[in-house]
């Protein structure tokens, strides 16, 4: 896979310099190719290539030229690479970044280059498009709190779980993703008995598991990766007495493909996120098929990853925007920004529209973890919530009054729940 990656990066750099005339539009792909998300980032590059190829390499009558800039998920690298893309490579549009803190840094950087357009890759921090958003930063994917929407009412109405304790990671994404769940859960009348915030990288949850209150219907888990696996392992060893509800990163591929039986504690766990691999909608199925056909099996995931889909949608948005303005990027790209803001975008995840903060409203998928019959686990689509907006159905003022995600926000009682 690494080889393919290098090859694709290399080809991007080696594209003939002669093609840099006015009949080309340069698109920079800012993506993490080092660090924990490297595999997902590489999938992002693949998906941008796929989208461009599907458009015949053209948009608005002009040739598209891709420039890949690798980052390592840290904000300063992201900004440095973005600056390189704009100042040295002379790109017109940047697709990216990948991670939350990079997104916030890029929002601030975007304000310093008002004549260029930045379309978010898959970063999911709420603040990026909520607090002091940049006029030329567009996000066509949902943010971390939107990913949690719909799950709360699902567990209350479908499962009858009204009292939960929560264990979530003590950092920005943990708060944000939890907020999406909690808002919905509390509005449905649920009760959050106790909230536990655990530091990232905690390996021993024995004490936390013992501290779970007795009379709860389920535990909400907002931890991911190895933390999630450690929790599940120790939870099973301690007797596994109640139900689980998974945050978006709880039941993702890193946990579902881990070796050993710890993950079996997840069977039957409802979770929510921006995509469902078994989504029957024709748009999604066609996209998965195109993805699988475009790359040999050894160089891709079985189906597109979350990161890949994010970059794919960003590339679709860019191509549609450029087509809409007929390739006219003059006047500081004002027309392009207008087109991006107003025209709904058809994506494999459903139709996406942007709000006044240039943040997407779209669909959230509620899934449950089931056995795949071959000793592994997979997720099964249970329900789908459309038109989830940035303020989770509240007015912007109500949402603002609730406060930014933190350990104590949202206040469940204020939303009609308890605890």
């Amino acid at each position, binding site marked *: 896979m690494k080889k393919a990656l290098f090859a694709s990066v290399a080809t991007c750099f080696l594209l003939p310099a002669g093609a840099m005339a006015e009949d080309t539009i340069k698109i920079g792909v800012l993506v993490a190719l080092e660090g924990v998300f490297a*595999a997902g980032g590489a999938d992002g590059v693949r998906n941008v290539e796929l989208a461009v190829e599907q458009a015949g390499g053209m948009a608005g009558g002009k040739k598209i030229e891709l420039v890949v800039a690798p980052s390592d998920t840290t904000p300063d690298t992201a900004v440095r690479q973005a600056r390189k893309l704009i100042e040295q490579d002379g790109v017109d549009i940047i697709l990216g970044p990948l991670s939350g803190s990079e997104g916030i840094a890029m929002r601030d950087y975007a304000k310093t280059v008002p004549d260029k357009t930045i379309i978010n890759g898959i970063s999911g921090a709420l603040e990026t498009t909520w607090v002091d958003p940049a006029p030329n930063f567009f996000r066509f994917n949902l943010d971390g709190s939107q990913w949690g929407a719909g799950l709360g009412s699902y567990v209350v109405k479908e499962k009858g779980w009204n009292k939960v304790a929560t264990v979530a990671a*003590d950092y920005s994404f943990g708060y944000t993703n939890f907020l999406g769940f909690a808002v919905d859960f509390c509005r449905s009348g649920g009760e959050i008995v106790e909230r*536990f*915030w*655990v*530091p990232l*990288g*905690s*390996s*021993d*949850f*024995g*004490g*936390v*598991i*013992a*501290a779970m209150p007795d009379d709860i219907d389920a535990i909400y888990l907002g931890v991911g*990766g*190895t933390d999630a*696996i*450690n929790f599940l*392992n*120790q939870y*099973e*060893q*301690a*007797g596994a007495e109640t139900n689980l509800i998974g945050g978006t990163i709880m039941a993702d591929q*890193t*946990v579902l*493909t*881990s*070796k*050993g*039986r*710890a993950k079996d504690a997840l069977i039957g766990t409802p979770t929510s996120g921006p995509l469902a691999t078994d989504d029957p909608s024709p748009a999604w199925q066609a996209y998965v098929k195109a993805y699988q056909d475009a790359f040999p099996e050894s160089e891709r995931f079985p189906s597109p990853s979350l990161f890949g889909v994010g970059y794919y949608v960003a590339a679709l948005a860019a191509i549609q925007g450029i087509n809409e303005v007929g390739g006219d990027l003059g006047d500081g790209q004002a027309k392009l920004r207008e087109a991006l803001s107003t025209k709904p975008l058809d994506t494999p995840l459903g139709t996406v529209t942007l709000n006044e903060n240039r943040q997407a409203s779209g669909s959230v998928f509620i899934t449950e973890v089931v056995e795949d019959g071959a000793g592994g686990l997979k997720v099964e689509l249970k329900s789908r919530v459309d038109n989830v907006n940035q303020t989770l159905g509240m007015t912007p003022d109500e949402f603002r009054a609730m406060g930014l995600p933190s350990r104590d926000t949202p206040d469940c009682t204020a939303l009609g729940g308890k605890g």
Partner: protein
Amino acid sequence: MRGFYSRRPIWSLIIAIAVAIVLWLIFAPWPEGLVDAIGAKRIFLNAFFGGITLGALYFLVASGFTLIFGLMRNVNLAHGSLYLLGGYVGYEVSDATGSWVLAFPVVFIVVAALGLILQNQVFRRMEGEELRQTMVTIGLSVVIADIMLWIWGGQSYTILSPEWLSGPTVLPIISSIKSSGDVVYLKYPAVRIAILVAAIAIGIAMWLVLNKSRLGMLIRAGVDDREMLAASGVRIQYVFLAVFAFGAGLAGMAGIVGGTFQSLSPGEDTRFLLASLVVVIVGGMGSIPGAAIGALVIGLSEQIGLVYAPTYSVVFTFLIMAAVLAFRPQGLLGSTR
């Protein structure tokens, strides 16, 4: 023991009171006021036993580390890699044979053999050159980590504990008394108790070997003054080999333990290297009882911190280390030389 009491009567008293309080907290039913103040007894007990189990795991890793350092003055920064390798090999063995217990001897032999090769082929060539050894061990740990990533990939592994150790077991310790008068006993994961018992057994065995056997005598003499020992005709290279292999094998077995009640993934090697460094700094370089006490202190502070003050739990470990370095730089049980 008596010597300590007569030298340090006040400290002895403080330690005795602390032990008495802990015993009371564990065995006595808690009064209402205490439960209101710091939560149910069950939570405290689980955090407390969790800390001891975690300490047992740290002890298994750190005791080999401290022996190797004490004897050979060799800071083996590839020790964490031996831990992770042991875990992966243990997973393969238990997955292939279905036997968790069988994994322990196999892993001990495999990792100890790797330790023999390392000591014989690498460290012997640079004896006494501490900087060079340190650099080489860092290099080795990077290489081994990459090889393991290549073989086992980036995903997480957990080792399945055997049927008779799965699930919780009931301990004869009162957790709470219900209003109806029923006594609720403490439930605790069986596999953790097994780990704890095994670690105590290994610790006692090591202490016996070190203090009662001829090999132990050689090792202790080597820790004190290896030039003198070599000059008196002992083939010190064999002692080195034995200690290195044993320390490596112990770290490998700790990998199985860690893989059973936590998980294995790239990065665990450095985490456990760091943990053993802290344990050894707190406990005192080259001292087995020191490693035991250091591991216990660090394990308890991590677990109790995680439950009662999760935000600061990461800090406690390093606060303890800083305090020890400030007031007793040789470590709690280390000797000044």
